[in-house]
């Protein structure tokens, strides 16, 4: 869990005043906060750690790093349960 995971921003929106994004990691999509990389937008690749984008990366870097993390079995945090905004939602 000390490694950030690269993903692609596929949607951006605001929630409770925070800039948020849908980020695609391989076949999974999770939410990430964009507060720390406010310049990132849809189509950009970002390194995400525990739900926060920490830096932008290029596509080649993103793909390579993702595959390595996959091989190292270091993508477990993406499988954590999704907490909905309201219970029963989704």
């Amino acid at each position, binding site marked *: 869990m000390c490694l950030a995971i690269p993903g692609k921003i596929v949607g951006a929106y605001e929630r409770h005043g925070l800039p948020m994004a849908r980020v695609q990691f391989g076949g999974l999509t999770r939410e990430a906060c964009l507060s*720390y990389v406010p310049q990132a937008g849809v189509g950009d690749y970002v390194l995400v750690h525990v739900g926060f984008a920490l830096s932008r990366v290029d596509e080649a870097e993103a793909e390579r*790093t993702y595959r390595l993390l996959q091989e190292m079995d270091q993508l477990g945090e993406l*499988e954590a349960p999704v907490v909905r905004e309201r219970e029963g939602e989704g």
Partner: protein
Amino acid sequence: MKYLDEYRDPRLAATLLEAIGRAQTRPWVIMEVCGGQTHSIVKHGLDQLLPAGIELVHGPGCPVCVTSLEMMDKAHAIARRPEVIFCSFGDMLRVPGSGGDLFGLRAQGADVRIVYSPLDCLALARQHPEREVVFFAIGFETTAPANAMLVERAQREGLGNVSVLVSHVLVPPAMANILQSPANRVQAFLGPGHVCAVMGYREYEPIAARFRVPIVIAGFEPLDLLEATLRAVRQLEAGQAQVDNAYARILGREGNPAARALVQRVFETCDRKWRGVGEIAQSGYRLRGEYRAHDAERKFEVAAIATREPEVCISGQILTGIQKPQDCPAFGGACTPLHPLGATMVSAEGACAAYYAYGRHLPAAAGRPAESGGRSADEGPWGPPVGAR
């Protein structure tokens, strides 16, 4: 998979290994700091591919591993309370405290939940205003921006039922602590890339200067690690001691200023106890006074808890680069990932768990000179030629 090969190319790896062999004229001990780097090094066998005179030792950079037993026991005491929804990153659930792990507590009825992001706690707190949502805020500088944001948002939204049990640890004081030890063997560091993506690497410059050690900020792909090792060896051979960024495609000297600013607004440094190592001065974060309403230790008045580690465990020696997993009599026998006895076996990023996962406890892998922690004198400073092993 189109980009995969560039950083795995065996020819590039061989070129780097040859360059390291050419640059090196005497033995050197280099520590990689980050647990992800340790995992990658062991998985790819980089420590066994390097010239025999270059020894990699494994640092304390696994946050799950170094979270103290006392803190685990505090977490358990809080999680047992009926009004508490105890939230944690998944890796912490199987870490044993003095009396079992968080999975076990959950089986006994405690409301323990794995979250992906600390912000998930805000949603839970809004949904359950009658409950207390407690987040186990562990990690190095990489998780601090996320945990700082949770606290800042809880404060701003007036969510009085959100609190954090803070057990943050910091890399630079741990490195200085290793270098100060009379038993220290480390002569250079491969610095933690993703930590520096947040914090930058200014803090490492005084350490390099004070202790005369090269620090090369590294990624965790095999070629990243080999290139950083080459740069470290070149500095060592030249008698230099500088911070060098071998991960410039990801980070600069300032890291992520926005993340750093919020971390510094919410947290202040404090002394912190590390599992296996003991207390290191100013090596952790705690909440600043203005956020104390969200401090779970204060809210739930958890008393200090006396704990004891198994005497056989040498994780403190491993975390400081003095010994290797195979030097421990319990490694792979009494101590395995399913029944860990100490810090370096409790998480996949710990050195013992990584060695175990890649079969280093099996007889065929044991006793190789690159792993034994010492070098035979008759091997000579050059070691066998690259590619001969």
